[in-house]
């Protein structure tokens, strides 16, 4: 049952992510990306991570993609009809190939998949709660990265204000 469900969602995920790069129209690409994010959220639910699923939908599908659609609409980019630059295609395909290679290399080389379960298993998640686990880890063990990220975001916000204001 679970495998069947996974297969269906995975097929939709692959199909929609192919559509992201093949659609002529930027809005349709953006919508396919939303669909891909939705499938990812479904995978998170199946991995006993409901909090991640909810955040995936709220932040990526709900906020970031709406902004992207907003910008596309504002710029009024129509269907891509002109010939695309060959250099851009070549460089981006090289980068994509390296990312794929790296992912496969670490996936097959890493020991995490072979050594079996870590300390946080499905039963731990069920008894403590996924949200609580993430919260505790983030505010104790990973406090420094968390604070650095928040500082980065603050800098980005101030930068955006400085860029958009003509007179400060």
């Amino acid at each position, binding site marked *: 049952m679970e495998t069947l469900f996974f297969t269906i969602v995975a097929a939709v995920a692959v199909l929609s992510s192919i559509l992201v790069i093949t659609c002529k129209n930027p*809005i*349709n690409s953006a*919508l396919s990306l939303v669909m891909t994010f939705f499938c990812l959220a479904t995978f998170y639910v199946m991995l006993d991570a409901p909090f991640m699923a*909810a955040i995936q*939908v709220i932040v990526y599908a709900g906020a970031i993609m709406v902004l992207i659609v907003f910008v596309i*609409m504002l710029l009024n980019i129509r269907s891509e009809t002109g010939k695309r630059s060959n250099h851009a295609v070549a460089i981006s395909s090289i980068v994509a190939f390296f990312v794929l290679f790296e992912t496969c290399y670490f996936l097959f080389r890493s020991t995490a998949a072979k050594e079996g379960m870590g300390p946080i298993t499905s039963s731990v998640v069920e008894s403590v709660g996924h949200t609580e686990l993430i919260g505790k880890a983030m505010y104790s063990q990973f406090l420094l990265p968390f604070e650095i990220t928040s500082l980065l975001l603050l800098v980005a916000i101030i930068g955006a204000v400085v860029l958009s204001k003509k007179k400060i």
Partner: protein
Amino acid sequence: MDALLALPPMYYVAMVAKVLIAFVFVLLTVAYATYAERKVIGFMQVRLGPMRTGWYGLLQPIADGLKLFFKEEVVPKQASTFAFLVAPLIALVPAFISFAVIPFGGNVEVFGYTIPLQIASVYDPTVGKVLDLNVGVLYILGMASLGVYGIVLAGWSSNSKYSLLGGLRASAQMISYELAAGLAIVSIFLMSGSLSLNQIVADQAGAFGVAGWYLFRNPFTFLAGIIFFICSIAEINRTPFDLPEAETELVSGFCTEYSSMKYAMFFMAEYANMVTVCAVTTTLFLGGWHGPAFLPGWMWFIAKVYFLIFCCMWIRATYPRYRYDQLMRLGWKVFLPITLVNVVATALWIMVVG
């Protein structure tokens, strides 16, 4: 998933029954909310509202539905057809599926099997507790943020100036007010210590009665409740925040080019959103289905939701529409700072008062 297969057959029967009852009830409420809106605003403006179809115009929603159903379906030639056709569906579906996590009553015993009156939940007899989605509030926020796609797509795909302006306004407005609404709920998380709606409702019960509701628990949650309701009204584009479909400026905004059933679906989405928002506010701030014992829980829930729907109509009949810069200023410069400070203040209150 495999745990689902091990459940008793009664679980499936109860689940289907709950889904059907809730869906039909929300649909009926949506249909008669249009009638109630016209009547309420009519009375507030010393008019009678619809009177001709049926007794006191009670058949008006059915007549409206039939009329729209038999209208000609028009798709503009220059429109992007696929996006144009799916946009009303994308607007309608998130409005309805938010109801899956809202508890609308206490437990009901049927043939010795306990059924919690909440769609996405099950009673576990071994623990003696109701298990529901433990990120219920986030689920509602997620679905609310998806509703914007319907409107934005409708505006963009119609290939008309007015529609595009409506869609642009809608996306900017909904993103701005989502933030403040989400931050207002954070003070509820602090009070309840849980994201499950069932837990939040249970925490508001108890001997205090009305004083146990989060709205009246402390001054900061009161503020959060008011701001959440206002932001929700802005997020579902109702007057005084109905700029995406401002009739005096944009013809009919994002749904200018729509006709027939598709137009009706946008209307249904708007009213279904209103019902959802009122149900969420009831659950988070007004004690959910709890009330004095002389009426069953689901009746209290319906009464509270209908009161809030009445408030929405009251606001619509009272206030003029905001100007666009005023709307943005209200969202970013008033509500966002207040809710941010409110989160800290609620935390301090919990630390000091308890």
